[in-house]
């Protein structure tokens, strides 16, 4: 039976990298959004510029489930190289749309799917003489065909094309013509619409569709960052680029044309963090954006910033590790290497957003926290959050909000503070006062160093001042605990002794899985952790549940280790639900894994058995 589903399906595009499909696919996705139906688009792309297979997936969900679902109900097969594997992955009853210019051997097709062939190449060859145009407009032609097949309002796509190419009338006309060709051909060739289709709705509201890296880059602009030093690395590059683009727009002095920011593409990640640390030391809000390999390279500087107490923000857009790993796939596998970065006794503040809206907010807030705490603050995104567009609540900013510049002694304050000690815990919260270079002619100068020192920043290798300092840093970490975003609790409809801990990009899939479990009478409470060190609520949640699952996107259950270390709780009886193949975790996966264990509590746990 062909699948029949209105506003609830997954469509997957199989393309060739560099063929211009990305913008056509986004156009398709946005048209559904404009019809008021929530979508979750995802790019699955290789570490390559041209030629290798790439996929684009759009989950359409009127109910608003925006995590990866798994499987596909419709396939737009534009890549001969992956045709067989793509067709094999289609759900039974699914639809295959392909370029039928060259006939396929019948044996390669399944008999439980609906096959829709359109001679796209033939159509475009007849229509366009330039080979590049043939390629590019082929993408728009299939968008037109899909509009007919899925009952998407062609007028909506028309509007989007007009907005996209505003002022470039020739391009608008050419795109509209290609769109119409596809639409008309599909109408005449197939019985439109299909069983899967889009129906106008009002479930999008004021939400926005945006990539997490854009959101974080914008958040850094709003948070007052003035110095960005970075080194290109997937998947963090677009974060620095988003900062640059928004600075160019909002941070250039209109009168002078001068920039109220400085962006430096460094020679490597070590220099990038070095520049950010130098700028933070000198009173600017500074950051770098990187991914796992960069985190490894920056370790020594993280230790310096921790020990010398220098504010700096680091965005880690996590990808598949270890080593070069899976550079274009997602994972949550840098938690431990960031939380305990560098040699010696170190620990660092992590902020863990669940998507673009929090990425914006946490990015801005990270600069306040870094200056308040005089330390490194990591914002832990991942490739799924950073490089995919997500439907989320609109960004918000209160114009009354001011930056927390932390404990900095100005000239006036130094005049009244004759006994300035850089590492003196005056307030008992572990946070000392700092001065900025050039601030006072005779007071406040001190020597910043990674070596051990006393409260007055004087070099010493004696045990007591060293311990005094290390214990103060510990006190400061406790202060941090109270300043960080609280976790988000989602209670089951009925009281439950089963608790699920989760974080970051797992959230959307977890919410859906919680609903799927509840529909089967399996009630679980969930707690989304948003920061390290942990806040009290995490401890309370653990204490009030008998069975704990921790859902992560890494092999080693890094969050479990982090919680165990931070809160001193025994976690050996917890059940990790781990998804780490590089694709985002899905509701189906989480549901299946948790449901199996809840139904058979005595069943052996494969992960522990493997250990």
């Amino acid at each position, binding site marked *: 039976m062909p699948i029949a589903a209105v506003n609830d399906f997954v469509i997957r595009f199989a393309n060739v990298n560099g063929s211009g499909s990305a913008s056509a696919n986004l156009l398709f996705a946005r048209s559904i959004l404009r019809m008021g139906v929530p979508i979750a688009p995802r790019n699955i792309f290789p570490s390559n510029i041209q030629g290798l297979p790439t996929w684009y997936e759009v989950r359409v969900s009127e109910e608003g489930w925006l995590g990866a679902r798994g499987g596909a109900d419709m396939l737009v097969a534009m890549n001969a190289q992956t045709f067989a594997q793509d067709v094999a992955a289609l759900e039974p009853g699914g639809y295959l749309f392909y370029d039928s210019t060259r006939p396929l051997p019948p044996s390669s097709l399944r008999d439980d799917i609906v096959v829709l062939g359109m001679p796209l190449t033939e159509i475009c060859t007849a229509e366009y003489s330039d080979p590049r145009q043939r390629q590019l407009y082929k993408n728009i032609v299939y968008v037109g065909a899909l509009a007919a097949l899925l009952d998407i309002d062609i007028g909506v796509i028309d509007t989007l094309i007009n907005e996209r190419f505003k002022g470039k009338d020739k391009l608008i006309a050419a795109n509209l013509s290609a769109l119409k060709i596809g639409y008309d051909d599909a109408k005449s060739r197939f019985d439109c619409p299909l069983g899967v289709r889009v129906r106008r709705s009002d479930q999008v509201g004021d939400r926005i569709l945006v990539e997490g890296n854009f959101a974080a880059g914008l958040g850094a602009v709003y948070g007052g960052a003035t110095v960005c030093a970075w080194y290109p690395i997937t998947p963090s590059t677009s974060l620095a680029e988003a900062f640059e683009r928004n600075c160019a727009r909002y941070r250039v002095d209109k009168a002078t044309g001068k920039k109220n*920011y400085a962006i430096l593409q460094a020679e490597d990640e070590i220099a990038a963090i*070095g520049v950010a640390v130098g700028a933070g*030391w*000198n009173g600017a809000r500074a950051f770098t954006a990187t991914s796992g390999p960069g985190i490894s390279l920056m370790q020594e500087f993280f230790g310096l910033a921790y020990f010398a107490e220098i504010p700096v923000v680091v965005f880690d857009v996590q990808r598949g590790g270890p080593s070069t790993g899976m550079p274009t796939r997602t994972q949550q596998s840098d938690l431990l290497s960031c939380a305990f970065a560098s040699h010696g006794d170190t620990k660092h503040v992590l902020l863990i957003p669940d998507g673009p809206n929090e990425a914006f907010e946490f990015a801005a807030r990270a600069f306040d926290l870094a200056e308040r705490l005089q330390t490194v603050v990591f914002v832990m995104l991942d490739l799924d959050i950073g490089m995919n567009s997500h439907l989320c609540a609109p960004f918000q900013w209160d114009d009354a909000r001011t930056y927390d510049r932390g404990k900095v002694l100005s000239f006036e304050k130094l005049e009244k503070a004759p006994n300035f000690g850089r590492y003196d815990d005056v307030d008992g919260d572990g946070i000392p006062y700092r001065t900025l270079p050039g601030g006072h002619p005779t007071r406040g100068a001190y020597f910043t160093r990674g070596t051990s020192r006393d409260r007055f920043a004087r070099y010493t290798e004696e045990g007591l001042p060293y311990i005094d300092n290390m214990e103060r840093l510990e006190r400061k970490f406790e202060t941090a605990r109270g300043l960080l975003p609280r976790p988000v609790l989602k209670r089951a409809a009925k009281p439950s002794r089963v608790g699920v801990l989760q974080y970051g990009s797992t959230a959307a899939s977890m919410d859906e899985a919680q609903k799927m479990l509840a529909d089967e009478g399996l009630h679980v409470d969930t707690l989304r952790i948003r920061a390290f060190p942990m806040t009290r609520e995490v401890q309370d949640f653990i204490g009030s549940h008998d069975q704990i699952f921790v859902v992560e996107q890494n092999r080693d259950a890094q969050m479990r280790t982090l919680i165990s270390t931070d809160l001193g709780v025994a976690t050996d009886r917890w059940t990790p639900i781990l998804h780490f193949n590089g694709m985002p975790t899905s509701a189906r996966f989480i549901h299946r894994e948790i449901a199996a264990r809840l139904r058979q509590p005595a069943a052996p746990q494969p992960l522990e058995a493997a250990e």
Partner: protein
Amino acid sequence: MTYLAKPKFHHPSIPVNALGFTHRDYEGSMSTLCAGCGHDAISAAIIHACFELSLPPHRIAKLSGIGCSSKTPTYMLGQSHGFNSVHGRMPSVLTGANLANRDLIYLGVSGDGDTASIGLGQFAHAMRRGVDMVYIVENNGVYGLTKGQFSATADRGSTAKKGAAALDQPIDLVGMAIGLGASFVARSFSGDKAQLVPLIKAAFEHKGAAFIDVISPCVTFNNHAGSTKSFDYVREHNIAVNALDVISGRDPIEVDYAEGASQSVTMHDGSTIVLRKLDANHDWRDRSAALATLERARVAGEIATGLIYLDDDASELHEVLGTAERPLNELSERELCPGSKALEAINASLR
């Protein structure tokens, strides 16, 4: 090292500079380096140069990496903020500090291990970016703190204290700095204060990346026969290509050079360098001639010192980036935050 702290009081007739500071106001903590260390002489030269230029001590930021040389910022400019960063990474930290506040004067102190070995990459990129700084390498050819291993500037065939010979080609930081686009490049000797102090002063007056390689004998590990960084060896092989004096706008000094033998350069802040040419073949404005001078000296087994290359019209990093005149670290929400209205427009564009 000296065990007795210097007395704070001074004679009422002791000279003061244009800011009313005495030499003492530019000094730092007591040195903990070995007695006779070339580095202490360089610190003294830096102190003297800053005093003579009447630089406000608190407007200088002194940064360093790791090693004997990188410890020296503690022993000078006690009223300046200092940052002893990580090994080989002073250039990036200084670059960031400079980006945050373009109004301060930046002094980077490094050593041959810190710059030519672990930090070669950062050295290179700071030079090519034209970071406005004075970058001094205290070059003794050895790692002192780990007891005398060769560094990358040790000459091939020179021997360590216990007889081992350096096997690899030496890195000539001066030649590299010129090649990388540094706009002020000099070499000097810690034992030649008369040459070193004016060079440091000129470097401070220069706008852009000013690099000085100062050969600084390690009295403990590299001052023996067979070393090419010993006091005796450097004195015997030192060939000054020019002599210079700096006439600061703030502190005029009369100089008396024979007509025709000297050339003067006006620096960006209005001060003047007067150069007396000692090597007829050396043209310090010409990059290729400067490199030829270095090569000639190398072949002859000599060490060319003096101002090797100067581009007095170079642009520095902030000019290249087009950053605001006001230091970035002084900007507030008003200049930095686009506000809720702009954000609403951004939201609208994402629907």
